[in-house]
């Protein structure tokens, strides 16, 4: 992506966003609410048209791709995916095969094998025959990821994939993405709220504020308490992870500045 700007409702939401994703990259996109993270992700997916700048996939401008071919390269997991409640998990994940199907749209046994593999990777093979409408938020999120994996993309864009997951599944989900990045060269751009997750699992962190990238680089470079404190307008501290040596960002606590128990400045 080069110099991408997006206007929504007459307001510039993303300004001059530039990012290169290489195979195997695991990049976290972080920043306060309203910083333009989700919009930047949607621009990267070709879901909003930038006012200026270009998004390229494999060197070809995203608008020049045939929709079906692009879907074989690039998959998106949105923030609160809509799912037809009566569909089984397996049928839902099989929708990821849409760009590969023929005229009448029937899956081949090879398609089903890929679906099963995606279910297995996302750790939801035991949910395969449950109806999507019966699932918890965390289970739905994993279904959405499995659906994206079934698309066999080279680039995966995820908008807060860990938002409704507990600690175990946050870990499993990001471990899975990491495994896919290292093992099969999947390039991931992940919008994350949790700076600790971003620091531990991602190789690169991009920090956005007010529509602009304010810092990009390794977790050590970007997860810098003074910078973050300014961007998030909240006092923060960095601890060092005892094993990885990577920074872990935490609230400064009651001693830093008056704020309520959720860490919101009062």
């Amino acid at each position, binding site marked *: 992506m080069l110099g991408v700007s997006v206007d929504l409702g007459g307001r510039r939401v993303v300004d001059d966003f530039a990012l290169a994703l290489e195979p195997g990259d695991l990049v976290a996109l972080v920043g306060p609410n309203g910083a333009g993270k989700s919009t930047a992700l949607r621009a990267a997916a070709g879901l909003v048209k930038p006012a200026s700048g270009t998004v390229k996939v494999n060197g070809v401008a995203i608008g020049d791709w045939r929709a079906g071919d692009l879907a074989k390269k690039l998959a998106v997991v949105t923030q609160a995916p809509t799912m037809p409640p009566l569909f089984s998990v397996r049928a839902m994940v099989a929708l990821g095969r*849409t760009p590969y199907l023929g005229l009448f749209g029937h899956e081949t046994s090879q398609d089903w094998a890929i679906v099963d593999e995606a279910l297995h990777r996302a750790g939801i093979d035991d949910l395969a025959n449950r109806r999507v409408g019966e699932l918890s938020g965390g289970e739905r999120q994993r279904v959405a990821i499995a659906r994206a994996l079934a698309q066999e993309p080279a680039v995966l864009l995820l908008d807060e994939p860990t938002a409704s997951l507990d600690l175990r599944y946050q870990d499993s989900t990001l471990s899975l993405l990491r495994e896919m990045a290292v093992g099969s060269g999947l390039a991931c751009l992940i919008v994350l709220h949790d700076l600790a997750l971003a620091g531990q699992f991602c190789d690169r962190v991009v920090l956005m504020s007010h529509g602009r990238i304010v810092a990009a680089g390794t977790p050590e470079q970007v997860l810098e308490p003074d910078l973050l404190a300014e961007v998030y307008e909240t006092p923060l501290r960095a601890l060092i992870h005892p094993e990885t040596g990577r920074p872990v960002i935490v609230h400064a606590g009651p001693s830093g500045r008056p704020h309520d128990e959720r860490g919101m400045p009062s």
Partner: protein
Amino acid sequence: MSEAGRPWATSAGAAISARGRVVIRSRVAAGYALGIPLLLITLVVAASIGPVQIDPRNTASIVLNHLHLAGLSGRVSGAEDVIIWQVRLPRVLTAGLVGATLAASGASYQAVFRNPLADPYLIGVAAGAALGATTAIVSPLPLDFYNFGYLAAFAFVGAMLAVGLTYELARVGRTIPPTAHILAGVAVSAAASAGTTLLMMLNESRVLVVFSWLYGDFTTSSWSKLWSILPYVAAALLVLVMLGRRMNALQLGEDEAKSLGLRVERLKAAIIITASLATAVCVAISGLIGFVGLIVPHVCRMLFGPDHRVLVPMSIIFGATFLIGSDLGARTVIAPQEIPVGILTAAIGAPFFLFLLRRQRQGMNL
């Protein structure tokens, strides 16, 4: 990465899901295996019943003979042959074709609007088509009731205007709340019906023609009318069946559907235009027949699940069966008088609609 890092990964899952797929597949196979013979039996029985009762075996023999599949049984009289082949069969087949089309259109509208209550009748399409067709009938243009092409074209324009108007009235941003959609459909239907009534009043000489057709009527069915709708309807049904898989993907959010390579706007437009064309042709030939597009897809969904690749063809089969049965009811309940078939389907459909509405209010997944 070790298995311990993914505590939820099991290997038994593949076997479980494979079994689930087999269950669903065999259900679908049973649906076709029972649905198609049921349709054929209904067809023969419906053709056999009437003022002159004919042995269903004779009916079958007459049909097979005309299809050059078998010689005529010795017990068949010439009168029976005329009654079946010239009178009843066109009517029964037209009812079947209309039922199939309304049900498939209903399933398609439900898919494209992501609204389980959508039905060609309830979202105003049928009333719009009726207004269009009435305009054609009463217009000073050199058209008459049997000049089917004009009638269908006017009905199609009316249907498209109604579907667009309903959509715009009910739209909130880029989504349409299901109940708001139905309310807007009712409002558009009421306005279109008022227009139809007004046209009838202003053109008294045509009142009877319009009136008898408006409330669902197969009495004027003929082979020539059947042939005139068949190409449109067959093409529309084929397109809807082929779009089944894409209708599935449309059930996801707009962004997800787009990221799966669907050109969502184009796809939605294609489905709406196809379903509306099919509905308009049906309205032009048989008037307003409500609720078929609601009842049949719902029952099929309960029986065969939500996959539109199955749902649309099943709706075709069971929609045909349902309307042939309803038409049989309409002409036998108070025989020798007939009641319009639209009144019969409404009598069945309205309570069903209220039941669905209630379930939806209780937050159940339809």
